């Protein structure tokens, strides 16, 4: 079912946790609510569920205004951050709870629970209690319980927060697979941008209660709406430059900034992959020394120091690194392939598409 939020505001004791937020979720979509903690994303999720009431604005589910509907009447499935399994009930009873409340017939409940346990590979664990399950199993029980009475929407609050890194990756894949199979409209909250970009169809980015941008993962990565999004999604080098005679300067770096008057301060950002490096010291305009190499698996993160002391972050594959015969302390020449002006003085500028060449960033690439 589709979901729409119109001018939603939520205040807690005079502080706006969510400020005039509007967005919509299409039927069958897998949507991520992304933002730093305290951004208001969980509050938004809870307002969709009916666990919190908005101070202002309307929530629509399938076109129907649900502001006045209680949690029980909204027919949503909610998976809590720590799963909130009923500790005193075994797996079967946990999954069956909602069905019992909705007065399903005994045999129907049995069939439905068996079906879900099979779907989530929990067969044979019916009699176990939550404390006897692994983290991954607990999460699967929580999702099975939320889906039991066939809700129109599945809401998940930080679904991968409570498990360790390795299982997290498995669970992500499972959620994508599940969503693919069931095609139920799904919204999940996360503070992990990698997670959001990897598995969602679209991302809603929040900070300090405001909606910063809505878009497909690639959109928010390549065309961030503002400085916050640009720096929050992926890594970005951010420089405070000052314009002199049509050129923005920071240390020895220069960026063309026509039609900007002298003395204007510009914040300029560029992705690590935009830093092009060569050991041929005459090839690129700037000189720098490789200070640190950080090993990240297939990719390496490099820190270059320019003569003025300015530090730039770059990244490359192991192969490129080997090809260039780089090592810490080595002198190189470099250039910035593309960049964007993030802000002028304190005001935020609209994003600018920049320069000649846009390398195709894959989602796994940002670090």
């Amino acid at each position, binding site marked *: 079912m589709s979901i729409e939020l119109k001018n939603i505001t939520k205040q807690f004791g005079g502080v706006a946790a969510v400020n005039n937020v509007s967005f919509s979720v299409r039927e069958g979509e897998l949507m991520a609510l992304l933002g730093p903690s305290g951004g208001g994303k969980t509050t938004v999720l809870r307002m969709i569920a009916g666990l919190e009431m908005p101070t202002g604005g309307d929530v629509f589910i399938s076109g129907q205004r649900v502001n006045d509907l209680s949690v*029980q009447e909204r027919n949503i499935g909610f998976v809590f951050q720590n799963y909130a399994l009923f*500790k005193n009930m075994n797996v079967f009873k946990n999954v069956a709870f*909602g069905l019992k409340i*909705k007065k399903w017939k005994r045999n129907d409940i049995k069939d439905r629970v068996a079906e879900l346990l*099979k779907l989530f590979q929990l067969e*044979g664990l019916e009699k*176990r209690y939550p404390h006897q399950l692994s983290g991954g199993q607990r999460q699967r029980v929580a999702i099975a319980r939320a889906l039991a009475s*066939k809700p129109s929407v599945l809401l998940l609050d930080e679904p991968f927060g409570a498990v360790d890194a390795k299982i997290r990756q498995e669970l992500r894949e499972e959620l994508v697979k599940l969503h693919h199979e069931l095609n139920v409209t799904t919204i999940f909250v996360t503070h992990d941008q990698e997670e959001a970009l990897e598995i969602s169809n679209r991302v809603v980015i929040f900070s300090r209660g405001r909606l910063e941008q809505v878009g497909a993962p690639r959109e928010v990565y390549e065309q961030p709406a503002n400085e916050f999004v640009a720096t929050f999604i992926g890594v970005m080098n951010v420089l405070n430059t000052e314009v002199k005679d049509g050129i923005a300067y920071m240390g020895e770096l220069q960026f063309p900034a026509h039609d900007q008057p002298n003395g204007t301060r510009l914040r300029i950002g560029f992705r690590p992959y935009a830093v092009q490096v060569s050991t041929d010291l005459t090839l690129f305009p700037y000189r720098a020394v490789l200070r640190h190499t950080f090993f990240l698996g297939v990719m390496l993160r490099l820190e270059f120091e320019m003569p003025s002391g300015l530090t730039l972050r770059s990244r490359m594959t192991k192969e490129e690194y080997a090809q260039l015969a780089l090592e810490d302390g080595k002198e190189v020449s470099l250039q910035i392939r593309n960049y964007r002006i993030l802000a002028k003085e304190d005001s935020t500028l609209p994003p600018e598409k920049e320069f000649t060449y846009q390398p195709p960033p894959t989602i796994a690439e940002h670090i």
Partner: protein
Amino acid sequence: MAGNVKRKINGDSHRKSRRGTEESTVVKWVLIAIALAFCLVFLLLPLINVFAQAFSKGCSAYLGALTSPDSWAAIRLTLIVAAIAVPLNVIFGLAAAWTIAKFNFRGKSLLITLIDLPFSVSPVVAGLMFVVLFGLQGFFGKFLDDHDIKIIFAVPGIVLATLFVTFPFVARELIPVMQATGTEQEQAALTLGASGWKTFWHVTLPSVKWGLIYGIILCNARAMGEYGAVSVVSGGISGRTDTMPLRVDKLYHEYNAQAAFAVASLLALLALITLGLKTFLEWKQAREFAKAETAPPVKTPESAGLSGAIGSMN
């Protein structure tokens, strides 16, 4: 075998200490002996003595002491008082613990302090307080006398005094349990369609079950065993306002030690029964967990898992 080899390698100096954090055998046994001796002298011996004294003149004397009209009346009164005080305090304790654990409001710490009040006030003072309020010379004394309502030196006074003294037990046990449990499980129940009452009944109550049972046991033991507050408001009218502890005291001062111990043995027995009941319930729960644990998980192939039930999902 492995142990022997290891010892040889480690040499003599390491022979005594087995593992880093383990005390030497001597210390262990000394500590165990002290604890056991203490329990024996201060708990077990007095308990055995109570029963030995109670049966010192044979079974018929024991039964005779219990069935004497005054003792029998005291037993009945004690049971009635507990039957009123315990359920009321369970309801109050649940409500107070719920309020304190799940909501934030002004004056919360004041409420917590108030709940503890009966612990910090001497029971005798508590009893006196009710006399001052409801006694003939008391605040409401004239009004009560005019309407022919008797509270002091009657059953209502005893119930009130017992209620006051046993007031904190259930709430005190429940507050930390409820605070630790949080509200997530209840919210989960709401999202699954459960009403507030059903959530309370199926989720909240079971999750605090052990705290509640323990609170009830303590509350009940104190309700039946309370002496100080009750003795002030009861007036000690034999056969009418004597509870079991008062009856024990009275019999003892009448130099009827055997009868005193007979009644006392009932109180002791009650304690033993409640402890036994608690142990049994814990054992039953542990067995249920163990049974669930031993059931082998059946792993199904991944592909079969996700494809089977899709058709009926949406």
